[in-house]
């Protein structure tokens, strides 16, 4: 990888995390209820887009920049875990369980669906 690629990884990584912050914030503010919709939707959309990239056979620097840098910093495992823990602290175990299981199942389906769409392009 060239120095230029490294610099782009940094810039696109920053863009991905800013996009997450904005989207997560907008959704969280409107959703209201206890379920962390913002993080859920960010992670699902990221999984679908990453599946799409790989399905479309994007590779090399393109995959590093769009996948690892941009979508890697857009999605967030740590926030998913932190918010699930907070639900547990609030004794909302049902919502915490749904957040864990639904993110896994729907996330897997989103990656697979994205892959299929990417491959068909």
């Amino acid at each position, binding site marked *: 990888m060239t120095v230029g690629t490294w610099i782009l990884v940094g810039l696109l990584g920053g863009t991905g995390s800013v996009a997450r912050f904005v989207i997560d914030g907008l959704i969280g503010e409107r959703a209201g209820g206890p379920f962390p919709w913002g*993080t859920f939707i960010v992670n699902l959309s990221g999984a679908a887009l990453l599946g799409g990239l790989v399905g479309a056979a994007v590779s090399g620097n393109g995959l590093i920049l769009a996948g690892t840098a941009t979508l890697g910093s857009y999605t967030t495992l740590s926030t998913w875990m932190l918010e699930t823990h*907070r639900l547990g602290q609030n*004794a*909302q175990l049902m919502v915490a369980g749904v957040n864990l299981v639904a993110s896994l199942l729907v996330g897997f389906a989103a990656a697979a669906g994205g892959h299929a769409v990417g491959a068909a392009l």
Partner: protein
Amino acid sequence: MNEDCLKLTAYFAERDRAGDGFLGDALLGVCERHRFQTSVLLRGTEGFGRHQVLQTERLLSLSEDLPMVLVAVDSRRRIEAALPEVGHVAGHGLMTLERARMLTGAIGAVTLPEDLHEATKLTVYCGRHERTGRRPAFVSVVDLLYQCGGLSTTVLLGVDGTAHGARQRARFLAANAEVPMMIIAVGPGDRIRRALPDLSGVLERPLMTLERVRVCKVDGRRLAEPHRVAGADDEGLHTWVKLMVHADHDTRHGRRPMYVELVRRLRAARLGGATVLEGIWGYHGARPPQGDRLLALRRHVPTTTVIVDTPDRIGQAFAIVDELTDEAGVVTSELVPAFRARGEWGEAGGLRLAQV
């Protein structure tokens, strides 16, 4: 020493700016320069202001601008001397002045004025790691208040402040022993008064305030309505009302934590704002004092929700509070003789005390 003093409280957001720095820092700078007896900066865990934007520690992206509360107490003369500077620094948020009596040094028998007999709010200020023998001082204070029959006590941890005139800021990975904490207790005036000598005995340098308060609800029992003030005083000054809801983190309404549901409904009713403060130790009602336990997932700390607004809107807020505290919680009402709200929309009120 036992003197009439003023309590200045500022409600704002963590990222509000004042000049080159944060507003919280700038306000503490004023407290430091004026060597206030005590001031404590508290970080809320959930809340909203006049702009109606929710901030909550529960969701990471909504927790970057949490509500902050600064409480500063000193003699009326010294607080009033600092007001022009405070007013200059604070561009946003709500500021209030309340009357209180300050007790410092060894506290013997205290005679309460007539109006403190019914119900009293006692606030004890002490250092974060102050100890009584081998126990944390705050645990001893809460035990004494529980034993004397106080209705509720909440220990709030400050992140910055002044104690006896000196700045005490909390730092990451530091001992932070002197950073002030604030212990808020509500109970019958005579019982609180009887506990005062013992309380001063477990503290290194006792510093407490007494305020009159109306207890509206205790564990589902409705005792009184919040204050209703009609119109302005002789000088045209208005009075606002402060509601405080003391409950536990695990007090529930339906399947949700009560404080979460309370903030949600107050916001849905488009009221002026609310701030939730989370304690580290305390009790309300008959349940013995408690805090978080090691390795326990569920939290057991107390929460205090503060709502300051016009008497009319407090009436609306109390209808919501009343419904949500049908089983647990202690609800109090206090008169706020001076308030000033300021934002991009303009300014309301002023920091001159109304005659209550």
